[in-house]
């Protein structure tokens, strides 16, 4: 996933709002995500909200680990999330494991799907714009 120049960079993520209305976030290579990182990411994502919830595409291919607390936060259960769907790109064994845990155990509160490519994820997420 190509990161545009205008992307907001935080410790473990690059995040931006695409022209197509899909929010994108890319996990930096080798990142070990804990709750603090998840909150930082949410803060950036929330800043894109105007009056309508939007889909988000998450490129998790560079992830090294994600703590239980971070997964629970991203599941958006019990909090007012500004996103209405998650398309997660996974490829490597670690990102697949994290993605499947997120789907199965953390149980996100919005429609969520795992994809291998950006195009597949975008095609699905367009349904939520």
């Amino acid at each position, binding site marked *: 996933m190509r990161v545009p120049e205008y992307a907001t960079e935080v410790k473990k993520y690059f995040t931006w709002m695409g022209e197509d209305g899909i929010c994108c976030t890319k996990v930096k290579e080798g990142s070990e995500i804990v709750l603090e990182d998840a909150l930082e990411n949410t803060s950036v994502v929330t800043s894109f909200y105007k009056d309508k919830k939007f889909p988000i595409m998450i490129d998790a291919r560079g992830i*090294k680990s994600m*703590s*239980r607390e971070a997964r629970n936060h991203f599941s958006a259960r019990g909090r007012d999330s500004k996103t209405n769907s998650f398309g997660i790109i996974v490829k490597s*064994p*670690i990102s697949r494991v*994290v993605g499947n*845990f997120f789907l199965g155990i953390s149980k996100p509160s919005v429609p969520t799907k795992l994809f291998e490519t950006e195009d597949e994820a975008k095609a699905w997420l367009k349904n939520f714009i």
Partner: protein
Amino acid sequence: MPNKIDTKFSNNNRVNEILEVIYAFARLDFNKKVAISGDDDALDGIGTGVNMLGEELNHSSVTLREKEQLLKEIHHRVKNNLQIVSSLLSLQSESVEDARYLNMIRESKNRINSMALVHEMLYKSKDLNKVELKEYIQRLSQSLVSSFSTERDNVAMQLTVGENIFLEIDKMIPVGLILNELISNSFKYAFTTPEKNEIKIFLIRAGDLLKLEVSDNGKGIDEAKGKSTSLGLQLIRMLSEQLNGTCIFRNDNGAKFELIFPL
């Protein structure tokens, strides 16, 4: 570039490390984690999965401990509340002189105490779920002997109860109340002579059934039945039904009650 032997050796070490972490989980030690090499290969994937499972197991075991603690507290509070009700009845009985009302208050107190004892034993038990019948019957009998000691201190209790028979609360409460009624009835109505008065409690397990017998060597059921409160007998029949059991009263050198019910 590492050669094949180096890679195999390294992978063996990583597999062993993953196994060590799984062994730790089996010992309920969820603090150990697999080190992720960063190669993002299959072993890293397995290691990540094991680490995440460890986090989930740790959370589940904490939740389970919290629930156990809560259950313990609930049993403790229920027991305390029942004891408060029992104490209130005692206080109230101080202003009562009529023997009939005093007797009714004592009956109510004994019924409450038989239930409080179940909750007390539950919060002290290991699994918070089951009560050992032998200990319960011993303690209930002692409590009833003490309750009737002022008017009848010449009754011998003989208990024959199988070891390691456990009942859950939904069965233990009715069994306790039945025992309380039967023992109280014997104390109150059975005996006409001051000597050789006996109450026998016999309880055995036969497969999936429990057989309970409560008998005395008093004057027998017909006379006793006439004098006993109808509430007591109604309660025994109702509670026997609640246990899905069958019960009979008969005379056999005194009053004898038999109840068979499924575990």
